[in-house]
């Protein structure tokens, strides 16, 4: 188990190094010159432009620039933001709590909604199943900015139940402010998770051990909980891991739509002004989220299915 964990962590570090290179390279390949954005479109003296280029090492060869940047990153120094003139790490850390709250809230909605609708469709074949399939199809196809507009118009403008703008402070106020953004963020993924849950449960419902449990007088709800849902958790966990990591990217649209100052909104505004130190740092954060989510999923799987146990090298 310890060996497995060490190997995986080494793999994560390698992945981060490779992606850091790709992220850095692609940001520099993109058109546009940060210096001109820095100067706000005003024409500046060649001396001023040269000073800025010097500060951000823009005159160095690509590999030298990368080495300087990555050298800073491993010590926790992501450079200074071009637009805010502040430490990138500080900028992100200040916005991280809002984003994490939003992701946690949305993940909760996705899990509860996805499992409930998926199980409902799997267990009530016929009209209910078809209704859930259509509903989840629509949900999956709805972009989060459309959902955001719809939710704001209904719950904020017409009903006035939830605020449409801002972070909120304190637990209750925060939950109230984050409800609509979390719902907009969750909608697409509820549909996705519901479909995966439905398919996985239908597959398990056809298993012989489910009939065996029924033949032994175990009540239907127990059979579903202990044999169907329990055994269907594998694919559900895998998809949930990917969804939660992907939420970090999806927040950029929702945070912008609801005026939340989080990491997603920071990414959007940084891309617009080509604030490359911030874009690079947030991109690395996204990669870190994905590899971490995958690691957690891989660690959880043996708890779900004992046949995948790492401790015994997966006998049989």
């Amino acid at each position: 188990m310890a060996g497995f964990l060490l190997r995986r962590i080494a793999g994560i570090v390698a992945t981060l190094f490779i992606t850091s290179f790709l992220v850095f390279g692609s940001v520099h390949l993109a058109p546009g010159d940060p210096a001109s954005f820095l100067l706000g479109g005003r024409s500046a003296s060649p001396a001023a432009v040269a000073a800025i280029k010097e500060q951000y090492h823009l005159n160095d060869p690509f590999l030298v620039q990368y080495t300087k940047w990555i050298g800073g990153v491993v010590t926790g120094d992501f450079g200074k933001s071009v637009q805010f003139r502040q430490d990138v790490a500080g900028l992100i850390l200040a916005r991280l709590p809002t984003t994490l709250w939003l992701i946690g809230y949305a993940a909760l909605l996705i899990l509860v909604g996805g499992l409930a609708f998926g199980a409902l469709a799997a267990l009530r074949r016929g009209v209910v199943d078809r209704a859930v399939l259509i509903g989840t199809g629509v949900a999956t196809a709805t972009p989060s900015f459309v959902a955001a507009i719809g939710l704001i118009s209904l719950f904020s403008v017409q009903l006035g139940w939830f605020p449409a703008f801002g972070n909120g402070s304190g637990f209750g106020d925060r939950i109230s402010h984050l409800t609509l953004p979390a719902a907009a963020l969750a909608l697409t993924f509820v549909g996705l998770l519901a479909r995966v849950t439905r398919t996985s449960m239908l597959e398990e419902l056809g298993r012989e051990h489910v009939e065996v449990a029924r033949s032994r007088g175990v009540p239907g709800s127990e059979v579903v909980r202990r044999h169907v849902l329990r055994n269907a958790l594998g694919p559900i966990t895998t998809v949930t891991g990917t969804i939660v990591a992907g939420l970090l990217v999806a927040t950029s649209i929702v945070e912008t739509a609801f005026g939340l100052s989080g990491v997603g909104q920071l990414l959007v505004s940084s891309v617009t002004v080509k604030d490359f130190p911030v874009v690079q740092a947030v991109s690395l954060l996204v990669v870190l989220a994905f590899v971490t989510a995958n690691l957690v999923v891989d660690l959880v799987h043996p708890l779900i299915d004992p046949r995948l146990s790492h401790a015994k090298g997966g006998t049989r």
Partner: protein
Amino acid sequence: MTTRLLEIENLTVRLAAGKAARPILDGVSLHVERGEAVGLVGESGSGKSVTCRAALGLLPEGAAATGALRLDGDDVLTMSPARLRDLRRRDVSMIFQDPRASINPMRRIGDFVTEGMRAGGMQQKDALKRAEELLESVGIREPRAALRRYPHEFSGGMLQRVMIAGALAGEPRLLLADEPTTALDVTTQAEVISILTRLQAERDMGMLFVTHDLELAAAICDRIYVMYAGRIVEAQSADGLFNRPRHPYTAGLLAATPRLDSDQAPHGVPGRPVSLAEAPSGCAFAARCAHAQPSCTEQEPVQREIDGAQVACLRVEELIHD
């Protein structure tokens, strides 16, 4: 007259749902007495598993059943769901064919063995204690440790023992065994059979033993029913069936068994087995029968008694040679 342990009278099952609508069983009657081992033999698709599962009130989805199926006089087909669960926990248990598919691979052995007992309201601690005794009685070494292990850590033969232990947990009066050795290695088949027959005798349970192996059935059962295309074609004592098969199909099944003490290769029953839905009018076996006459395809044979055997064959009297 005392009531029989299991009495199936004229059981007819058909799938009613949509395009799949077709008959599966036609007028099946059989009974099992207390402490008696009864064999139910036939090729795949003959309806023997459906008959067996019906005794637990487990019918295929969308199936409609007519006739009667009584356990100690109570009709299983008309039972309330709650009474049916009770029946499955305490009165009737089933041993399934493939233990690896029938035991949830993600749950512990102890969980499987105690599941029925806990569903019946027994405390976890008592159920585990009883499970340990049960595992010991089916010959699982270190039963206490086995309770905490997972199915993939056991061989197929050991898992089938676990299944038997689980089936005995509710102290059933009737044990249904649906081809319990078909999925096992030859070497472990004999062990599982001996455990099964020993426990059946010790606990005085009635047993309905479903198999396609006529010789195995003859070895462990008191009486045998032979099924073909959803109907019972012959019923008699195991000895009688083995020595004097009356129905041409039974004789064909016996001739198809390979034998060590014979130079002759076994010859199979010609043709392929049909299901009830495909069966033509008249005798369903007529197309494969060496003794068939034109009248066989016109008239459906009814069961008649010949020397203590129940046989459904029009020509049974003419075919007796001994």
